[in-house]
């Protein structure tokens, strides 16, 4: 399994390459008024308006810092059978690793709010945790986020 790694704060996480459409450089966002703070905003991705989720804000309630290595990971987000595009804001989106399934370990603690955290892999450079893209957006937000899209 090929995974894209990135950092949120001091932790390293990984997303399956199959779920990623593209990694794009940082751009300016149009913000969501009165939306939860972990929605960084919207941006034009190849002619389509895509919402961007600030992973650091989601996980730690701190805004992602705008480093050079801070990039938008455009992923496929599947909900109600429809596939949408979702941008994820991560730091140090720099590396790609190949992981074997038998190397993965159960994470141990998963709370209701952190259902997107998946299994772990122990590498020499540190522990990397897989992220389940589908669980990133809370269900009650999910519906309102893609409603307009659905109506179209």
């Amino acid at each position, binding site marked *: 399994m*090929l995974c*894209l790694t990135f950092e949120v704060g001091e932790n390293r996480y990984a997303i399956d*390459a*199959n779920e*990623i459409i*593209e*990694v*794009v*450089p940082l751009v300016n966002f149009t913000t969501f008024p009165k939306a939860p703070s972990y929605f960084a905003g919207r941006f034009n991705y190849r002619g389509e308006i895509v919402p961007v989720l600030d992973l650091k804000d989601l996980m730690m309630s701190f805004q992602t810092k705008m480093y*050079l*290595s801070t*990039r938008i990971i455009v992923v496929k987000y599947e909900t109600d059978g429809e596939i949408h595009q979702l941008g994820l804001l991560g730091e140090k*989106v*720099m590396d*790609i690793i190949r992981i074997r399934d038998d190397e993965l370990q159960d994470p141990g603690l998963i709370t209701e709010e952190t259902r997107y955290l998946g299994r772990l892999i122990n590498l020499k450079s540190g522990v990397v945790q897989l992220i389940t893209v589908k669980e990133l957006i809370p269900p009650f937000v999910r519906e309102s986020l893609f409603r307009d899209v659905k109506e179209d």
Partner: protein
Amino acid sequence: MLRKLTLRFNILLRRYTVLTKLTMIGVLLGLPLTIILVLNLFNLFDSIDFVDKEKTGIKIFIPLTSLQVHLMEHKAYSFATISSGVDYQTKIAALNSQIKDELDQLIKINNTEGKNIGVDNETMNLGEDYYLSPPSLMAQWEKLLSESKRLSPGDLLTAYNKLEDNLGKFMRLVTVNARLTLDPSGDAYHLIYLSIHLMPRMHDLIGRAFIVAIEDAQDSLFNNERLAEIIYLTRTMRNLITDEIPSAVRSAIDLDPEYNGRLPSIDGVLSPMLEHYRSDVISILEIYENIIRNNSTYGTEELTGLTTEKLDESLDFNRAALNELEKVVHINYNYTYYRIFFRFIISVGAFLLAMVMIYFTAKGMITPVNGVAEIARDLSEGDIQSAKEKVFALAERFLVSPIGAKKEKDEIWKLFRAIHGTIDNLEIILRQVGRAGIAVTSSVTQISASVQALNAAINQQAASTAEVKATGKEIYSSSIQLSETVEDVAEKSGRTLQLADKGASGLTEINLSMASLEQGSKEIAEKLSELYKKTSNITNVITTITKIATQTNLLSLNASIEAEKAGEYGAGFSVVSAEIKRLAEETAMAALEIEETIREMQQAVKADVIGVEVYAGTTRSSVSRISGIADNINEIIEYTKGVLPSFEEVSTKMKIQTDGAAQISDAMSELNDVALHTRESISEFSEITENLEGAVGSLREILAKFRFGG
């Protein structure tokens, strides 16, 4: 008055039990009835006595009748002897002994039985009719016999007539004393009439007719008197034989079944005899009638024989009649005894039966009522369980139908049902009351607990109030202290203001000399910044390189992802992208190295100008520090100036606060008073609660008396 009497009567009756009262009622009702019945019995005893007398009379009468007839025959033979000269000695002798026997018999019967009807010797000797007593008759008879030879026929006739008359009187005496003619039953009456009245009359008539006939035969001269007499005699006799005697017999036979039950022998014996007797009597009547007409074909001898024969027959008939009469009277006698027996049995039996009924009725009422009374006592003692058991026990003993039956006439049963219902209801109510009592107890307990809690709270409040009060006082005192302190501070601030003014003027001079020093160091700094700019350009280039490396890295990332998506076909591409990624990393490393070199160079420049920098920095900082101090002093002066009026304000406010504290203290005192009042009220309430608890306790005690089953 009437009500008083009724009350008295009720009180009087209440002293006795129901059994006694019922027995009293029974006795009151039964006793008069019994007395009437007993009196009735005595009446019957009277009628027994009556019949007894009748029997005695008849017994005496039988020899009397024979005696009459035989005496008459004796007279007939005596006169026949005189008139015809025929010797009837044998017949007379036979009659003598017969008469003697009959008189003896009469005397004997009279002595033994006669006392019953008052014709015995002793009784008769005391009265006027002493000469009619059988012994006296016997004496008269013996006298007549002894004197008969010496007497003339006329005297003899008189003597005979006198004896017959006495005999007749005695017969009447017996008849009257024995009350024979008063017999109420028809058959007996007619038989008595026949045998006591008609037949002796018949005998008498026959006798008289014979004497007249004999006289007539002796004296052939026409005698008007004799004719008239014989006509009267024959007419009477004919009347008797054709009318009265048969009708008497007929009546006796007809009435017999009505009275003492049918006695067939009356008809069987008397009817044929009567027929025979009548024809005989009629035949002799015809003889006498012929005598009247003076064409007598009979001699004295024949006439005597016929007459005695008829007399014998007549006697037989009379005996038969008397015999039947005796039977009838005997039946009557027995019948009366049966009646007595039955009446006695009925009266006594009814009385006893009534008493037994009363006893059992009373018992049947009293025992359940006593049982119910016992149940009621149990209820009053509160033993419901026992009461219930007793109800069932009594119901089993006294009730035919079960308690659950719908309808019953028996009042006891109704009573039981009522009692049963009462006990059930009482039990339910008591259980409810018990439950309610428990509920009330718990409520009371809760209330008292609440009251205690409230009390504690009040106490606490009082304590808190006291504390607040104390605090108020403290505030008051500290406020006073504070206002003093504030005044002190205001004074000291005034002094500080003066000192600060002096300091500020000194500092301004130092500041001016420092400004010139700063100017020199600024120039050096400008040169250094120029050098910095130049090195920065190099840094820009490095940054550009780094950007390119980063973009290359991004490109390689996307390439890797695309290659992964392409799967097998992307494998080659994947290697390429990995190489690109490595190239980007190396580029970045080179850039970092250049940056490092530049940084070292910049540090060297820094080291050259460091002295200047330090000097300029120190100067700048001194200038700024001095001007800062001056500013501070100025600020202090300004502030102190501004503060002073504030102190006055604070002082006045402090005074107001002091007043407020005093007011708080007063209010707290009032509150304390209120709390005390409240506590008193609560202690009253507590007492009330205790009373309530006591009441509930007593209710529970009462309830505890009731014992429930199950």
